[in-house]
């Protein structure tokens, strides 16, 4: 993953969270506004209810004063017959109404001539519940100049004064002035009732819908009649509200205040103003809204976390998938490499197949021919897959390196085992079978490292007598038993791995040796006797047997046949004397006469052979004892092989140093040329010491 794509992924994740948060927030805002509107309506409704109630209460209180006046009117009028009885009437007047604190009767000038121009008895309630009546008119109090008096006289109807403060406690009052007329309808006095308004503030704010909502009463002119007490709401706020309600200021300096107004329907037409604090009214939903924001942030954090985890998982999955693809790709390459390791071209006398159960496998088969000998092997690494494949690859290389120099299957196994045991930390091991078939003589030497015994097909079917040694990779110093036999012409050796014997069908039954045997019998009765056909029929039979069941193990088959048809063989026994070279020459000429071979090539081969034989005569018998040198000549028409066997002292001519052919005549050594010529003229010269004899084989392709 690149930095850019990581950044993009990160940004897109943040984008998703932000978008989700924005959507939730948007819904929240819309909902909040809706609730707010509903609550506002509710607030207004409650406000209106409150105002209606207050308006009723105030009207009722004022009406009560008006009623008091009407009820006492007759009595007051009657008392007016004599000035001295007026006092009692006044006391009676104020006695019946708790809100009425005082009452006065302002007579028109000179009504009672005895009382002078002005006469105004004024009754008040004392705190101890007694009454007191005073005559309050005088030079310093000329009520005829009073606006209220004048207004009532002029209009001839009752009136309420605007509220005013009075007395030591500065209590609010309003006065109801009522014109009293004589029988002719002429106003003779104006009766005033002083109504204490101190209760009004309490009444107004006793049952407010919200803790800090309040109500004020204003005169039509906008003067404050009553409001909340100072300890409830500050005078400053009240004054602000009054100004705002009167329209003196366009905008309230008190944000968050909303108000409702109503007015009494009759005198004194006071206005009632209900004031709300929006913050308070909406406090609950605002609180809820704040909580909601916290919830949203919390939810978004969780969402972000979930998305992050999800994308991380997604990314891991993607990574795993890429990794898988990479491994698959590498396995495919490994599989190809492994397939390339296997032989692809088969001469008529050998054929093999390998079907891995997985991409790569631990089975191997291989063969290698030199000096007229076929080296073949089959192996099965314990386990499957890559570790097995690595071991398999290793033995593949080793087999080729070792068989180049070593003839003996036991020695080959020893060499392979030593290498495989080196640093075999995984404790892997491998069953292995190596054979060396002399393609001319049918001589077969072989050694098995714990591998299944091969089948032998002649006219019938048998199994090769093979001693089972330890598998490769177990102990470094294992020695392997080698066995040998001579095959009849036409004999076939069939090697296989347990992928064949242990091929299972769906019922978990194994193909087994019986399955192999049955297939081989069927093969022997058939017309196509090629090794390819043999291997294919076995592989097909195993697959047919397994049916739907998956292949559980690598399936490897290798068939080798001793098929000496079209071969020319001849031999001669020479004494260890140089004069015998003449006989050798004749022998070689006769042998070549049977082959279609170029003269120049034939001369070269003859020279190589002569030099090798002379070497044996010169060096294998250092004490000039009598001995023999036997020569076996073989050819299949494509190559010739001469095998020189002597019973002299061990002598390996291939180990001799070659002379320097670039020296000048004076410095040229006389000896050493023979083996040089042999080497150069032949494709290969191979020395071995076998059964106390020196065996030297010289091979050359003649086609």
């Amino acid at each position, binding site marked *: 993953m690149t930095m850019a794509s990581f950044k993009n992924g990160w940004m897109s994740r943040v984008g998703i969270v932000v978008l989700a948060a924005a959507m939730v927030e948007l819904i929240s805002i819309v909902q909040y506004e809706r609730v707010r509107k509903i609550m506002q309506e509710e607030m207004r409704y409650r406000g209106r209810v409150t105002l209606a109630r207050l308006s009723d209460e105030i009207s009722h209180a004022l009406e009560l004063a008006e009623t008091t006046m009407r009820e006492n009117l007759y009595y007051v009028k009657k008392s007016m017959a004599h000035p001295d009885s007026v006092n009692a009437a006044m006391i009676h007047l104020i006695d019946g109404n708790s809100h009425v604190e005082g009452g006065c009767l302002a007579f028109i000038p000179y009504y009672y001539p005895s009382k002078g121009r002005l006469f105004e008895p004024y009754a008040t309630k004392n705190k101890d519940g007694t009454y007191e009546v005073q005559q309050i008119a005088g030079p310093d109090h000329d009520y005829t100049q009073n606006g209220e008096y004048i207004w009532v006289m002029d209009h001839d109807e009752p009136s309420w004064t605007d509220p005013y403060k009075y007395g030591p406690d500065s209590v609010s009052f309003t006065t109801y002035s009522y014109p009293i007329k004589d029988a002719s309808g002429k106003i003779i006095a104006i009766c005033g009732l002083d109504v204490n308004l101190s209760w009004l503030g309490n009444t107004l704010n006793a049952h407010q819908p919200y803790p800090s909502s309040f109500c004020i009463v204003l005169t039509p002119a906008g003067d404050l009649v009553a409001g909340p007490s100072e300890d409830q709401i500050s005078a400053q706020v009240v004054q602000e509200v009054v100004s705002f309600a009167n329209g003196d200021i366009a905008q309230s300096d008190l944000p968050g205040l909303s108000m409702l107004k109503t007015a009494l329907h009759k005198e004194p037409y006071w206005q009632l103003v209900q004031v709300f604090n929006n913050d308070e009214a909406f406090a609950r939903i605002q609180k809820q809204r704040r909580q909601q924001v916290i919830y949203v942030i919390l939810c978004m954090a969780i969402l972000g976390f979930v998305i992050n985890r999800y994308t991380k998982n997604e990314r891991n999955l993607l990574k795993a998938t890429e990794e898988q693809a990479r491994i698959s790709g590498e396995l495919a390459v490994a599989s190809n490499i492994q397939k390339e390791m296997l032989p692809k071209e088969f001469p008529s006398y050998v054929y093999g197949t390998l079907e891995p159960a997985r991409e790569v496998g631990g089975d191997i088969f291989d063969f290698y021919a030199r000096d007229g000998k076929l080296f073949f092997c089959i192996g099965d690494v314990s386990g499957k897959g890559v570790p097995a494949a690595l071991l398999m690859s290793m033995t593949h290389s080793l087999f080729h390196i070792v068989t180049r120099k070593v003839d003996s299957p036991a020695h080959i196994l020893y060499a392979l085992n030593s290498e495989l045991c080196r640093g075999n930390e995984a404790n892997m091991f491998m069953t292995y079978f190596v054979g060396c078939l002399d393609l001319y003589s049918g001589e077969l030497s072989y050694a098995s490292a714990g591998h299944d015994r091969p089948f032998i097909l002649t006219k019938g079917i048998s199994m090769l007598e093979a001693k089972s040694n330890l598998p490769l990779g177990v102990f470094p110093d294992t020695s392997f038993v080698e066995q040998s036999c001579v095959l009849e012409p036409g004999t076939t050796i069939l090697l296989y791995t347990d992928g064949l014997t242990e091929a299972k069908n769906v019922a978990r039954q194994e193909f087994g040796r019986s399955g192999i045997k049955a297939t081989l019998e069927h093969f022997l009765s058939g017309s196509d006797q090629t090794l390819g056909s043999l291997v294919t029929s076995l592989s097909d039979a195993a697959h047919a047997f397994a049916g739907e069941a998956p292949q559980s193990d690598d399936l490897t088959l290798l068939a080798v046949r001793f098929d000496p048809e079209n071969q020319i063989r001849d031999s001669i026994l020479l004494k260890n004397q140089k004069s015998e070279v003449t006989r050798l020459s004749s022998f070689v000429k006769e042998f070549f006469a049977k082959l279609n071979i170029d003269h120049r090539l034939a001369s070269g081969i003859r020279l190589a052979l002569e*030099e090798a034989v002379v070497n044996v005569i010169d060096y294998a018998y250092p004490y000039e004892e009598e001995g023999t040198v036997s020569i076996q000549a073989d050819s299949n028409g494509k190559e010739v092989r001469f095998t020189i066997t002597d019973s002299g002292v061990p002598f390996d001519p291939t180990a001799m140093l070659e002379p320097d052919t670039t020296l000048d*005549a004076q410095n040229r050594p006389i000896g050493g040329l023979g083996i040089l010529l042999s080497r150069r003229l032949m494709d290969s010269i191979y020395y071995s010491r076998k059964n106390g004899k020196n065996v030297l084989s010289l091979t050359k392709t003649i086609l």
Partner: protein
Amino acid sequence: MITTIKETDERFIATLSGELDTAAAQETEVALQPLLDSKGKEIVLDCTDLEYISSSGLRVLLSILKQAKSVGSRVVLKNVNDVIRDVLDISGFISIFDVE
């Protein structure tokens, strides 16, 4: 193996015919003995009929060459066939003899 030697004023001309194999080397060496005393004359070995030569044969030729070189003479191999040439090639003798 048949060898004949002719001596002129300037050179020895030896004709080699047949197969100079290991068995024939000794008798050939004897037969060519006169060439080991070339008296400074050029030695020509006519190989027209020489069919085959082994390392023992080469050794005989080498001893003649060494003697001739020591007295400032030279050895010419004439009419060498492919088989012989192969052997001279491999052994490197082609560079120390004058092969015509």
